[in-house]
């Protein structure tokens, strides 16, 4: 089961909007809007209580030394998520085409970017 806001489009969205991408691939300090979560109901509930649900703004703001887990800012909170969880969360970056082409966040260049 997944969240109720199933995206109507695939990960490749229309020409106007940036495509959806898994949260773990979003660049550090690049804000996005959470669109869809594809996890089991109990995990959805838990994430929901922590403020992670479709519609919220989310920004990666740091990571553990190996790049996993990463820290995400939601409102005034900073919440750590493993990449294994974050890859099930689809986000739409806020008009930033770079986010699609930059390397994975746990790569050395991404770490330097932090």
């Amino acid at each position, binding site marked *: 089961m997944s969240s109720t*806001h199933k995206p109507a489009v695939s990960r490749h969205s229309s020409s106007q909007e940036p495509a959806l991408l898994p949260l773990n691939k979003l660049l550090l300090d690049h804000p996005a809007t959470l669109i869809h979560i594809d*996890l089991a109901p*109990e*995990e959805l*509930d*838990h*994430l*929901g*209580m*922590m*403020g*992670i*649900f*479709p*519609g*919220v703004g989310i920004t990666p*703001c*740091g*990571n*553990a*030394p*190996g790049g*996993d*887990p990463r*820290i995400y*800012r*939601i*409102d*005034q*909170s*900073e*919440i*750590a*998520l*493993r990449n*294994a*969880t974050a890859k099930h969360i689809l986000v739409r970056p806020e008009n930033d085409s770079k986010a699609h082409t930059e390397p994975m966040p746990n790569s050395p260049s991404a*770490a330097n970017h*932090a």
Partner: protein
Amino acid sequence: MPSCHDTGKPAAIVLDPPRTDGPRRLAPTPFRFVALIGPPNSGKTTLFNRLTGLRQKIANYPGVTVEQHTGRIAHHHALRDVTLVDLPGIYGLNAQSEDARVAIEVLSGHMDGTPRPDAVLLVLDSTNLGRHLVLAAQILSLGLPTLVLLNMRDQLEARGGSVDTLKLAQELGTPVALISATQPDALDPIYRFLEETGGHRELVQLPVIQNPALCRDWAVQVGRRANYTAPASPVWTRRLDRIVLHPVWGAVVFLAIVVTVFQFVFTIGSWLSDLLTNFMLTAGNRLGALIPIPWLQSLLLNGVWKGAGSVLAFLPQILTLFFFIGLLEDSGYLARAALIADRTMARFGLNGKAFIPLLSAYACAVPAIMATRTIENKRDRLATILIAPFMTCSARLPIYTLMIAAFIPNRMLVPHILGLRAAAMIGLYFLGFAAAFVTAQLLNSSVLRRNKAPFVLELPQYRWPTIQSIVFRLYERGKIFVTQAGTVILSVTVLLSALSMLPVRHGVQSDIGASWLASIGRFFEPLLHPLGFNWKIGIGLLSSIIAREVIVGTLGTLYGADPATHSMTLQAAVRHDLTFPAACALVVFFAFAMQCTSTLAVVKRETNSWRWPIIQFVYMSGIAYLAALAVNQLAHYL
């Protein structure tokens, strides 16, 4: 619990009948049982301690309070009959973790032996109001008189945030106060609320509480109408995280902390410990001279005083360790350490949230096992409970310190940085850590096999640890240790002292070698001989099944009663009685063995079965015996 009408639009949950003539006041209700609730790490326990005068543990990471604590309001005569219950932090009323279940059951009146609260003090973090108001919607929907306390006013204002509490009170239909829980005036609004029967409640619209998106929209709107300005990001937290979580500097900081802690334990702690030992010896000799009856003098001085004193001598080292653990917990570094460790934890099938309970097991396994209540997944929680006693708790510190001081020379391994003794201690801590993780891997690949659980951890801001908090913690820990030394250890040493002098033949007490105690010890000696242990160590091991630190008191009593060693210090007596391989085998045995009845009892309580504590005892004791055997035999060959 309120009903859910998930229609996709915010629906009103009516708290009171619609009013017709302005705000309606409820009839005065004497509060008897008041709940303190709020999200994790919002400052509930700080307020609880101030209101009740109690000293429940506080720290700067989510999940410090895992069970309910109750206390009467102190320092306010009119409210002395009001009982406060401090509940574990929750983000919502449908949480799955064990600690959150406790909070929800108390609030809903379903907790056995605990009445339903007749009022609520809802503590929210004012620097994160957008998110925490979501919980306010759920708590207000319970229909109880509620005071909303927006805590951390100082941080909100220092970082440029603000909120209009009057407007927020109108929006929520309940009184609101902006406070700093540590400031002197923080309790005034609480006293006023409790004295004035909770003020007034008005008709308010609440969102459908099971729909997080709608709850959040509602919270944002309420915050906007209350002119809430969110504070700027904590600059120092971001700057420090860039160092602490850096791929290279993060590891350097972590290692520096570990080395500093153990160096201090072995320099400042040992120095203070020596002072205390000398004081105890001098005081014991002077007091002993006042006792005219020889056998009573021997029992009290060589048995009881030396036994209990030899354990008390380690109090400075234990307090030094707890001082550093307190600094780490209160500063917010502990949550970062959990983040750093998560990748390693995941490799061994452990949830990242297990890190904080495992780290607190360095202090004591009992609170650590209770702290596993923050882990939502039952298998992850059980795995953490089963491995926590391998972590090197402070009860192992006395025997480790004794054996290291007796057998390891006091010289530097790395000049000016790390001594050989501190390195040996770090090695023993690592041994416990390795045993825990190997066991976790075994569990994960067998009886507790499962998919990886999600890791979701809220990171607190860094804060300066307060002197008061650290002093309280040291006081509480010292009290536990001294009480243990004054009760369990004293009782054991009295019993052992008596057994070491019996039987009395023709009015003459037995030599220790011919005593009943020696007979008991020699009965077990064949089992322990391959490990290099004699009957005295056997008696020490037997007595330490109650609690690990008892062995030091036991050895103090035994060597004090033995004419061959009674004039020696405990270190010298141990060196006289044990070979180096046997000493290594003894510390390895202690690294792995389950010698703590309190831990077994808490495992039984938390797993609701005798099955797991029995398995744990047999497994750990078996590993301890085999490892000690291997060390003693190998060390003889090398």
